[in-house]
């Protein structure tokens, strides 16, 4: 893969962090931004979960990853730590592929 998108994305992420610490408070206190920005990670994380679980390239599929996600949901509901949730998902997919 090319370095350019990687470096641009890293610079953008750093610039966003720097802006938060540097811009006058009023810039980000616009109520519309205060409301909208926290919604972005919710929507994007959910979309990433859906696309990475239920698709292979441009096809919709249901395979062992769906079961892995279900186990991860149980782990999250049980308030398992981050790494346990990730390991539970990966282990479920690995075990089901062994069967």
């Amino acid at each position, binding site marked *: *893969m090319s370095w350019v998108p990687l470096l641009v994305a*890293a610079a953008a992420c750093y610039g966003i*962090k720097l802006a938060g610490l540097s811009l006058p408070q009023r810039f980000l206190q616009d109520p519309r931004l205060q409301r909208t920005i926290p919604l972005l*990670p*919710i929507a994007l994380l959910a979309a990433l979960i859906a696309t990475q679980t239920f698709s292979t390239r441009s096809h919709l599929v249901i395979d062992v990853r769906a079961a892995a996600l279900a186990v991860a949901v149980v782990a999250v509901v049980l308030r398992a730590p981050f790494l346990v949730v*990730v390991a539970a998902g990966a282990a479920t997919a690995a075990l089901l*592929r062994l069967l």
Partner: protein
Amino acid sequence: MSLLQTCALSVLMFTGASQFALVGVIGAGGNAWAGAATAALLGTRNALYGLRLSSILEVSGWRRFAASHFVIDETTAMAIARDQPAHSRFAFWATGFTLFCLWNLGTLIGALATSVFPDPKTLGLDAAPPAAFLALLAPRLRGREPVAIALAAGVIALAFLPFVPAGVPLLIVATAVVLYGLRSWR
């Protein structure tokens, strides 16, 4: 993605969800720029964290440039959980430094391990990112609206997925939620 690129991503970007998103879009065969845009959009929450932190940290000059790199979910949570500014500042820098070292060490180990395990699927590693995203998403799902947004986002992304290039469903979802947020703020 080369070993050097994987490690550079953790050193230079240092915000987990964005890194996973960039790698995820590229891994799904998507355009690297779609991945980069998704990473940046996921990073916008760090601007709000910086806003919360700027009055606590009171950094200027080169310290502000250093502190900026550490503005992430974990450092913000640790800093705002303290009630004295001095404790908050210590929590921020200590958490940031510790996580930065561990995160990059973990990245290096993981990147080296891929040469030992040629097919990540046998270890279920393709199921790991969705589980990680879920663990990042869960604490944000307080109340009915976030749950509805999350479900709608998943459905919209899957609805567009067969018809547009990889990564683009994420940008469609981002556009939709921004329009929703801007229009419904009252």
